[in-house]
């Protein structure tokens, strides 16, 4: 590799980051266009929200609607949630000692 490529690598860096900038910006523009184009369903049409506001107190007994959702109606998500956290802890416990006891095994 010739020494001269210091300019080459700078040029390569500029092209690479401008390409990435274009990709990221285009993704943003696409998302915002979709966000604007899609008509926000008028709040009354949100059947799930309307059902929760009317029935949460009676069915789950919680006044905080957010709690009635994540511990009542969607408690299954929260179960998955606690599993994710438990696995993160188990993963950290398992991998945290990676630095010390590194065993090479194919």
């Amino acid at each position, binding site marked *: 590799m010739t020494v001269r490529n210091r300019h080459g690598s700078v040029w390569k860096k500029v092209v690479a980051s401008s390409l990435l900038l274009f990709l990221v910006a285009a993704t943003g523009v696409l998302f915002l266009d979709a966000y604007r*184009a*899609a008509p926000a369903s008028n709040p009354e049409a949100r059947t799930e929200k309307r059902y929760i506001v009317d029935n949460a107190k009676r069915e789950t007994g919680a006044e905080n609607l957010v709690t009635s959702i994540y511990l009542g*109606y969607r408690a299954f998500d929260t179960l998955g949630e606690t*599993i994710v956290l438990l696995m993160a802890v188990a993963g950290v416990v*398992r991998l945290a000692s990676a630095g010390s006891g590194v065993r090479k095994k*194919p």
Partner: protein
Amino acid sequence: MTQAPVVLVLLPLVAALCALIEKALPRVRIARVSALLGILAGVAVTLLAFPLVRSGVYPTLVVGGFDSVVGISLTLDGVGWIGSVIVLVICLSGLLYVLSEEQYDALFYFFYMMMVSGMEGAILTRDLFNLFVFLEIFGIAAYVLVAYSRAGYALLAGYKYLVMSSLAMSLFLLGVLLIYRSTGTLSLDRLAEVMKGAADTNPARPSSPPVPGVAFLLLIVGIGTRTAFVPYHTWLPEAHASAPHPVSAVLSGVMIKVAFIALFRLLTAAGDPHLARLFLWIGAATALFGVGAALAQIDMKRLLAFHSVSQMGYILAALGAATLFSGLSGSTASTGGAAASFLHATSHALFKSLLFLTIGLVITHAGARTVTAVHGMGSVLPLVLVAFSVGALAIAGVPPMNGFVSKKLVMYSVKTMPVVYRVLWIAGIGTVASFLKLSAVFRKAHSTPGVGVTRIAPGDTGPELRPRIGLLKSAAIMLPALLCVVMGLFPGPLYRTVSGMVGATVTAGLANVYTVSALLDTAVVVALGALLYAGVRTRTGYRVAAVLRSPRIGFNAALSLMLAGFLLFAAYLM
């Protein structure tokens, strides 16, 4: 029986908790037993539910007994049943392999069973956000299992898989946001109603669709990274190559299928033919790229991993051609695409996990990982040779294996698209060539002396040198091998049941696949494959392969490739 879906998710979960209990109290050795029981009970429940599901009565329930408007609903429908069979059978054979080895501690069983539970949940859920949670559950299990050996390259592979996948899942969440904002609901059923409602009012491509196409694309990016089709496949070879052998078998065999089923559910909910046909091109590109990259590899597990990518290309091409939602061919008769994609997903799950387990045994006994370094293992491990050849014949699409049946159905379903058909046909040749290359490991070393760590000369394999691989491991490789052959021998009933389950119309002509023209076509493909293999073995062949193998795209390039893929798909949908 209506509680079957929840039970299928809870069984492996309880087994995982038992493994956790053993980690806390090491005296209580219940992890292994509970893992085996968890999966066997799951298989029992799935088989019990078969008559119900086959007759079209899908056990459906809302978790918590709330109204289906607001609760999370789980359904064991035809697609879910097939997925559940794939998950449980392959994880059973992987578990048999794990049980036979001592070095896996209780924590491994905990992650393994959590992965099974996460995959079951992802297949059965009818709720978008719940799908996100289950994708994350078995995702985290996969990241930790890939990095389980704590070797440097395994940690790096796990890290890359984690970062790429969580970036994609954040885009998935943005997709869920757009859908919730436009339709006010998270359930796939009501999303399908909204989309069908809009399509009925103005059947011409609706100018302002209720949900923007970009929303579905964002979901496809998230799911695509787990299915590993072309722009999102870069994590797969390293992750599958550096994971422990049973884990790579399950990752390659099952995990990409679970993501494929989630993709299938999304496409049926979207009901947009234009979007579904996109997968014809993605499938063709993935099949061709996967085989080309695999042919250049010398590391056995990387070669197999690239084949998983290419075979997923076949499955996606068949999905793209399915008339279930793409209304592709004018004639009313269905192209059999949907049934072909699920049949190929099932057979690929079987033979790919079989190949990974057998190659895993070869690597542990030979002590080396590359095709050039290991020779003559055929006489050392005869049973492994038998199982490997079943898998190799199946992936090459040679009768009487299930690979032949499902590959022929896939080729038939894309017959109306000559370009895609030709590409998949060429990919078939590459598959034959690369498995001839891989099978060199079993043949005696004659022409190129293996520059290897342990070169087991065929002469000195006395009985004591032929290591016993144990009952459990033999069961682990014989179970999928047997199923590969059995599925290959009954194509007719298999095709009818699968298309019935998937809800596609049955085309009589497709039932018998063993037609003369099909056999002839396979013979031509195999011959060309042998020719290509001969070409690869020449001096120029090795140089070309070395050149093809060297440029590994860096991780930053791989991440920007994801965005480029997203923009490309958006341009296609424009």
